[in-house]
């Protein structure tokens, strides 16, 4: 998994491991914090455990899927407009 991740960045395997564990730690902390703070939900859906966490994750996933699908339809090679002139 670490090797696969290294394809997308230039961190060494060690740095990546440290960053990964920090990331997981921060995510876990944000979830745990919910139990120590009194939340004031605006709507009933917000009373779901960790609503904001999964809502954010799902919203982003939906946006990525939707924009990639739209991209299939609307993406053109660079110079698409300039090419028309020549």
């Amino acid at each position, binding site marked *: 998994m670490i090797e696969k991740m290294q394809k997308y960045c230039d961190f060494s395997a060690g740095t990546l491991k440290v960053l990964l564990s920090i990331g997981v730690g921060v995510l876990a902390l944000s979830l745990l914090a919910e139990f120590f703070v009194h939340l004031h939900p605006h709507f009933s859906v917000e009373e779901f455990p960790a609503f904001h966490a999964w*809502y954010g994750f799902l919203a982003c996933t939906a946006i990525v899927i939707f924009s990639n699908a739209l991209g299939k339809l609307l993406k053109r090679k660079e110079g698409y407009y300039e090419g028309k002139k020549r």
Partner: protein
Amino acid sequence: MFETFTFPPGLILIIGGLLLPLLKGGWRQAAVLALPLLTLYDVWSVPAEDAFQTDFMGYPLTLIHVHAYTHIFATIFCIAAFAGALFALKHASTKELSAAMIYAGAAVSTTFVGDLISLFIFWEVMALASCVIVLSGGTEQARAAGMRYIAMHLLSGILLMAGITAHIAITGSDTVTHFLISSENWLALPDNFSPSGVARAFEVESLGVWLIFIGILVNLAAPPFSAWLADAYPEASPFGTVFLSAFTTKTAVFVMLTLFSGSEILIYIGLFMVFYGIVYAMLENDMRRILAYSIVNQVGFMVTGIGIGTEMALNGAAAHAFCHIIYKALLLMSAGSVLFMTGRRKCTELGGLYHSMPLTAICGIIGALAISAFPLTSGFVSKSMISDAAAMEHLPWVWYALAAASAGVFLHAGIKFPWFVFFQRDSGLRPTDPPANMRLAMILMAALCILPGIWPDPLYALLPQPVEYDPNTAAHFVTQLQLLLFSGLAFFALLPWLQRTQTITIDLDWFYRVLLLKLMKFIFMVGMAVYHIVVAAGATVAAWTIISTRTIATQPMFLARTFPLGNTALWVSFLLGVYLLIYYNV
């Protein structure tokens, strides 16, 4: 008349900008920095009552009229002009700096006008000055984009002028007033005007108001006019884009806020803009075009707030415009520094720059956190005001959409921009941080991104209504951090899907950049064909006429024959003889 110093603040920048080319070297640099500060001083020293009035064809023009949101917008325009000038000080051309000062001056003036005719005048000054900035990009693409840009903004000006003319013709008044586009009957009428008690939708009286509304929508980059922004702004110079990002759309926000607050249709327009900006930014490869799409996205939040129309929502929209101008300027300064130092603008050609441009990277990240409304930044304060206003008005779908959009902002601007420019795979480029004045401008803007986050009171003080809103509560921190951190998780989990390609994404401007061009070529071809057919037919007819005439002339028929001169003389003397006989016999 002039008991106090009452000079329209915007005119200081406009006149200063016009005189700028006359100054030399150090004096010019000093003037560019002093003009926005002088204007800022004037903004806060003009009197609250109307001043600087004159007459135009019987209609009063008022250049100093303090509206509810004049101070906050005029203040941020001055700050943006100052920071932009500091950033551009050493390397921008005089023409560009001069245009930028006039552009900023027209924006400030717009916030102070008391009548619609003056509004139109400064609207047009802004269009022209900003077009000069786009053209100053200096490339062939900048020239073409500048022409498309000015065409769009002249269209906006024409719509606005036509609307204002219709409005004045109907009501006889040119004062800035409030309009409401009500969702019950889609009626657009000035508040103080109802010709026969209740007017129906799409009456001719509401035409002027609709035209003004659409004219403002063009400058807001609202659908279906969104494409001009991401088309033109990234073609300007690294300095020009910083100025461009601040004024045109936010002036339109101010005018929309002053004229059309509470018009429900704006909620839907705003939400569309929010998601349009995110989706197009996700697909984009050019780092400054990502940020340009994100302007449309952020203006969408403000437009939604204006549509909700409660005191809190309007305050939120104005505060968000204030914070947005700062963090977007900072983001574009960071991207501009990268472009200035490397000459590259595409995500696919950048990466790993944090090694050698640490300050630019840190400032870029601070701007990215602020735009994402990360706790303890300015965006957290202002964006929360808008979405909490939606919750208070019991508009659940608006609130869900804004929450999803906040996650999307973190995705496209908050992580995507810094990740692909400063981190990801190393491009091997090792440029240094930009020159001192550019670094200073970035540090100033970064400080202004964080300050309202930890101490929002000065920002609240700029708003017309007292604000009793504390964003910095533990509950708000936790929910926002969950939303953003798990959006971040989604970004890295889906990273293989987010790798950029060497592509552009077509938009509605395809219709006038490609379809209309093809249509014109087609019409030209048809015209040419008709022309050739007519010419050929004409030539045939002419040739036929000549040939037949010649045939007749050469035929030995009586009338067509040529007669000898002697015969003619004989006939003439015969006729004269007949005439004499008749004359003497009568």
